């Protein structure tokens, strides 16, 4: 048995951006690059969820809820989507086969713990990874994982196991793809960019909780200053290591997605030539740079090279400064008058 859909693998920084971009290309929509997907889908975010522990560390995210980038991007571009979850593994595979047979490469939400082609060091119980299945050769599904340079394969059993991984954000076999080719005009892209930016402004400035958006960044900064006393040197170091991993690990493009957002604003300028977009893009570059400077400080602590209260204060202050920088950037974005 051999079946293969029309599909071209393009590597991306982030899995959901990459799956979205590549699936859109598979239905002939090729103008939507990774940064446009991320910006139109309002991917940029920050949240530290209180009281929740992930892998014995703080629950921190630099991006919006998994699944939303694909959903919003397609929505805002007026592209109809197919999305399905399953309670039965057999139904899930049947649907996958039927989609492939009808010529659709499909996005699958998967857990990474049993993702065999990932290095062992990366295999945690994280269930919101995304990949594309674009065909099958005998027992092997053809897989395009956008964070990898090259395509790969998973056996039927391996694919089923990751599609039905359990725990938080369990994928339940979730499958999604754009239903059909839909013409996407530049005007449509312009309006989608504006909607994407305005949603991100809301997410980062106007959520009335101090755990999310720019206020969330400041709150985490203040918390970090207390970690040394509250948790002890070693555990505080592990917490910082977790922050750095969420910020820099595969998928963020560097600087906790802030660079991708800077790239988005530059590409947005191509559709909406407003000089402010280029200026604000520079602010996001500065913010990303400062996130990375903070990561270097954190590394000094978890490697045990430094670790005084003063060092934690410096670390916390970086986040307070980033919070102010991003507040300024999103305020400027909120005030842009589109022509």
């Amino acid at each position, binding site marked *: 048995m051999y079946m293969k859909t029309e599909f071209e693998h393009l590597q991306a920084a982030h899995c959901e951006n990459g799956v979205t971009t590549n699936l859109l290309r598979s239905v002939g929509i090729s103008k939507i690059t990774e940064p446009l997907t991320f910006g139109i889908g309002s991917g940029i975010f920050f949240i530290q969820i209180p009281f929740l522990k992930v892998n014995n*560390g703080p629950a921190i995210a630099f991006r919006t809820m998994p699944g939303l980038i694909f959903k919003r991007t397609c929505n805002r571009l007026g592209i109809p989507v197919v999305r399905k979850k399953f309670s039965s593994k057999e139904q899930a595979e049947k649907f996958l086969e039927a989609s492939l047979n009808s010529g659709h490469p499909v996005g699958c939400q998967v857990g990474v713990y049993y993702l065999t082609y990932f290095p062992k*060091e990366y295999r945690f119980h994280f269930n919101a990874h995304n990949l594309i299945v674009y065909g099958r050769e005998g027992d092997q599904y053809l897989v395009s994982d956008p*964070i*990898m340079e090259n395509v790969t394969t998973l056996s039927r059993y391996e694919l089923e196991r990751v599609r039905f991984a359990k725990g938080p954000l369990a994928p339940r076999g979730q499958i999604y793809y754009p239903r059909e080719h839909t013409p996407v005009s530049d005007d449509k892209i312009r309006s989608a960019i504006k909607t994407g930016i305005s949603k991100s402004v809301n997410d980062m400035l106007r959520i009335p909780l101090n755990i999310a958006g720019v206020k969330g960044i400041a709150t985490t900064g203040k918390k970090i200053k207390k970690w040394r006393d509250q948790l002890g040197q070693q555990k505080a170091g592990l917490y*910082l290591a*977790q922050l*750095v991993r969420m910020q*820099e*690990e595969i998928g963020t493009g*560097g600087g906790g997605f802030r660079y991708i957002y800077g790239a988005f604003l530059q590409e947005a300028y191509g559709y909406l030539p407003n000089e402010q977009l280029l200026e604000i893009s520079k602010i996001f570059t500065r913010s990303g740079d400062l996130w990375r400077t903070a990561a270097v400080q954190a590394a000094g602590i978890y490697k045990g090279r430094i670790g005084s209260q003063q060092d934690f204060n410096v670390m916390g202050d970086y986040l307070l400064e980033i919070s102010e920088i991003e507040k300024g950037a999103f305020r400027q974005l909120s005030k842009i008058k589109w022509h």
Partner: protein
Amino acid sequence: MKKEEIPQDDGALNKSTKEVCYAVDSEGKYTTELSTGWEVKSTALDAAWKDIDERVKAARQKVLNGEASPLLFFMELRLMDIGIVSAYTGFWKWTIRQHLKPAVFNKLTESKLQKYATAFNVELADLKTMNVHED
């Protein structure tokens, strides 16, 4: 970040793939470049795994001391908390907490033990002995 500043350090990921980074070129325009890794984040991952190794060792000792059942060892080994074990086995969290006590664990039926063995991806026989054959 400038394109030429993208770190090209060693890391666990680079056995499988390089990763895409975003950075600006000499004209300030955003572009992408592949990176082999960044020491700052590979040491963050190392720190996490060192902690996991210590937790696994401590759990093994607790089981040997009779303070916990082998479930604790396999939970640490498989990076699972009680919620994840509950999701994979179908047991309630409360029940799993009971099974973490050696006296309760030792009386479990084979079918219940098999659920744990499946969840931890180990042989039933290895569940009690804490033998691990890596796949």
